[in-house]
């Protein structure tokens, strides 16, 4: 359709805009309006209440543990999957996608069956050691780690494939230790992939509801606080907390598109024209095609 008539174009455009308006733009806009229609004091009181502050700090703890761990192990796992060959590699690769593929509630249940105080694999032993995982913050942290695990791995793997091993080999030939090679050659080359992965993992970790709700007991994170306020018929509290989360989500979107533009500019300045351009959106649906052993796309 190189030149569809103006009528067709306007028609299709209106259908798309109406659909997006009804599904996303108007609903999201409406809760911003509802939150602030009676002024600022009510929403601020709600999120600064004892429960609200508690939920905020619990969320910070979960994100603060999950994201750094997933970053370190994510880079390591990506390196292992791209640069090494071993039996069971495709299984390991497939396991990375599991958190994307399964229901958050199933993740919660799974942790429950391993760590619950009773009727579980290790729960009662851990209780004897004085560690309670389920119905407590450690369980919420584990759930957050699980759901945000794939992002760094999946963002770093294609970059590692693309950069190849020439520079690392050169560094080693010149006598660099593996550590030096990693810090001075590999890490700078994959820095954008790591950054995207961290941003996406943070967004996911901040907003996780299903997996955390199964294991949280009476503890609250920000998303759980939204539900509690709603069920307690405190709509303004629910809206206020939801707005905080929505603003964080939008900040993630903005920083991602800023980072993508910047990395593109840096790549152009470095004269690296082969570099794959980021897709049209921030979130690219990942599907590891062809399994772990697939050669890089040529």
């Amino acid at each position, binding site marked *: 359709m190189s030149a569809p008539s103006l009528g067709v174009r306007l028609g299709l455009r209106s259908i798309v805009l109406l659909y997006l308006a009804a*599904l*996303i733009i108007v609903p999201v806009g409406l809760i911003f309006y509802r939150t602030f229609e009676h002024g600022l004091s009510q929403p601020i009181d709600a999120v600064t209440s004892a429960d609200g502050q508690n939920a905020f700090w619990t969320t910070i703890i979960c994100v603060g543990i999950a994201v750094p761990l997933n970053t370190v192990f994510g880079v390591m796992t990506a390196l292992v999957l791209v640069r090494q060959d071993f039996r069971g590699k495709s299984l390991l690769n497939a396991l990375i996608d599991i958190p994307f593929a399964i229901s958050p509630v199933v993740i919660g249940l799974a942790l429950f069956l391993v760590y619950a105080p009773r009727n579980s694999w290790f729960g009662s032993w851990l209780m004897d050691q004085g560690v309670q995982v389920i119905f407590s913050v450690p369980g919420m942290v584990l759930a957050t780690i699980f759901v945000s695990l794939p992002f760094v791995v999946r963002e770093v793997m294609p970059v590692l494939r693309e950069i190849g091993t020439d520079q690392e080999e050169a560094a080693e030939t010149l006598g660099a230790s593996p550590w030096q090679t990693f810090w001075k050659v590999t890490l700078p080359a994959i820095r954008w992939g790591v950054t995207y992965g961290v941003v996406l993992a943070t967004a996911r970790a*901040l907003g996780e509801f299903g997996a955390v709700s199964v294991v949280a007991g009476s503890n609250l994170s920000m998303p759980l606080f939204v539900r509690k306020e709603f069920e307690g018929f405190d709509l303004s509290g629910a809206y206020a907390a939801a707005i905080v989360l929505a603003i964080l989500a939008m900040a993630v979107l903005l920083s991602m598109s800023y980072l993508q533009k910047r990395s593109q500019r840096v790549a152009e300045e470095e004269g690296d024209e082969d570099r794959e351009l980021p897709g049209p959106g*921030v979130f690219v649906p990942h599907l590891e095609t062809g399994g772990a052993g697939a050669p890089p796309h040529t």
Partner: protein
Amino acid sequence: MASADTAVVSPPRAGLRAPLGGAALTRGAAVLWISLIVLLPLAAVLSRGFSDGIGHFWSSITDGEAMAAIKLTLISSLIVVSVNAIMGTLIAWVLVRDDFRGKRLVNSVIDLPFALPTIVASLVLLALYGPNSPVGIHLAYTKGAVIAALLFVTLPFVVRSVQPVLLEVDREMEEAAASLGAPNHRIFRSIILPNLVPAMVAGCGLAFARAIGEFGSLVLLTGNVPFKTEAASVYIYGQVQTGDYSGAAAVSVFLLAVSVGLLLALNLFAGWRTRHERA
């Protein structure tokens, strides 16, 4: 690309590439990490699902309430994926081929459902389509609410799969067809669509896998009425609350099998297509 050649010709030499003190060490750490975080809990669900035998597993998922929840989930997901196939492709087409003020803003709105926490999505849809709906549409606590929530959370998949393909499609064939007098719908059906089908399939598959497991966006919106608006994930949550872990695990294993099977099929499809195209 030089990197491709080295990767194919020389197998990675163990020890040389590993930055953290030995290939075996990093490999061991990665395997241990994934096993501890992902494999161990997964194994617990599988073993609990079958702990009372296959007969009990079967009766757990065919139990009236469980079956109703599974049916609702599968049927709603199918409807949602069909709508996505059409609307997602249409949105991608408008974003690539059309030009209007505010297009970049619309483009970034597509990502919002990925970034927005699911519980916020639930609240957001409830504000517009709930009991206090300012437009008089009352979807809340009906099956329509399930559809609306799933449409919201799965919106980006097809759009973001199809968009890059459309960007790269060769326009010359379309122009040739147009200059030979082919009408627009014919050009779309026989030239554009065949190029898009693989991306549509991939996007739909991912959207379906997401839809059958969705939980957060349904919680506030659907009322979770058993046999009516209770989706499979909400049913699992309810069983955990009442202490029926085997029942919850059985339905979980079923959902897991469907989405893992689907992703596997998509991978095979993509791999087959890559080989097919190269040959």
